[in-house]
């Protein structure tokens, strides 16, 4: 069976979602501050690979890497929740199937312990 990554059109499609997602993220007063002075093209590139990975595309990041890059950022649970809400919002904007949205969010949710250290 084709993965979500393949069904939605691979990296090209995922990158559109991720760009729209970061538009919302930067506008958010809850988590926008984390992204001040961040190299956005690099950020979007990483996130595109990550979302591709949780959608069943090629894997780029191990749990160890995710933990290592997020630990110094001291991300708290509120920020994580906000991020999840914005991601859901974005995925809905792209008219993705509800089941797929839940599946992607679940994949991200299980990685919360790697990301939240606040």
């Amino acid at each position, binding site marked *: 069976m084709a993965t979500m990554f393949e069904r939605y059109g691979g*990296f090209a499609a995922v*990158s559109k979602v991720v760009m729209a997602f970061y538009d919302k993220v930067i*506008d958010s007063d809850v988590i926008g*501050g984390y992204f*001040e002075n961040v190299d*956005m*093209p*690099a950020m979007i*590139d990483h996130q595109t690979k990550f979302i591709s990975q949780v959608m069943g595309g090629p894997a*780029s990041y191990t749990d160890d890497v995710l933990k290592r890059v997020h630990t110094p950022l001291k991300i708290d649970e509120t920020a994580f929740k906000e991020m999840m809400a914005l991601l859901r919002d974005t995925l809905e904007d792209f008219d993705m199937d509800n089941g797929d949205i839940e599946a992607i969010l679940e994949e991200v949710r299980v990685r919360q312990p790697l990301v939240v250290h606040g």
Partner: protein
Amino acid sequence: MNLDNFNKVLLESVGVGLAILDATSLEILMGNRRFDEWFPDSIGSGKKVGEVLAEFEPEKLARKIEADKPYSFETSVHMKRRSISLAITCSRHTHGDTAVLIMECQNISKIKELEYMIESYSKMVEKQNRVLQKEKERVEKLLLNVMPKSVYQELKSFGVTTPQRYDDASMLMLDFVGFTDMAVAQDPAGLISELNDIFTAFDRIAEQFGCERIKTIGDAYMAVSGIPEPSPEHALNIARLAVLMLRYIKRRNSVHSQKWICRIGINSGPVIGSIVGVQKYVYDIFGPGVNLAARMEALSEPMEITLCEDMHKLIKNEFYFTERGEMEVKGFGTKKIYTLDGARGVIQMRSDDMIDNLPI
């Protein structure tokens, strides 16, 4: 020209940032809302464009205008946590006596992001290609272990190989006396490890003489010369290989507690070389000459090299022999049998050095 009206109708309605500069003083005379957002407090402030945009270079502008070309550069502005990349183009326009510069600012952030991603993915693909290439080389190396290079190339190009007949070839069969008993009586793992060392040494000697190891079956070792590349010295090379293998074993026995006793049969004759199998490739040789070499090995006394008249006539001037007389060889009738005792003169190819350098 009613610039106020122009300003209202056009400038405000477009998504790009637009500004009009005095062509001489480079002051920013007016701009649309987008320009004002990106460069606040610059329109009509009397500020020159260079004070607002650090990347602006008046000399370059002058050169471009001189050549009647637009002047372009890139910059970025920071707006509420966002860094926006802008592509800016200035062009000169005149209306009667008035000369102005029109400055267009396009938001190219998304393009930058995409460029970054393309770059990143092409690196990813390159990396994967390198991994694949390495894997391919590894597979190639493995295949080259089981078949001659020219056969591998044929297989790679055509997907199949045709059996080849080689009229001038020589082969060698070696096995160890009492190996089966040795293997069960003592430490089998250690014994196999020793056998592995010995076969590895044989491979290196064979390589030196342009011979190919065809296969090993248990404790038996089979090599060939003259295929797939023909060699006028195929018989001599197999004889040299046999002499040096024996010398290597003797040297090894003088140092190790485990004594290896081998028998070697050599022969010359036409063979067919071919890949056998589809999923499991084995390159093998066939022909009566191969069987005869096996018979010679069986007739051989321990630590001797045995051959018959067929091959003897090809190498009789280069080696010493002991004639063992005529014997009945199963499937081949009566043959005159010889034992090869050694080479007349020194075997070339730094043979003694080579044996010395092999791990024993």
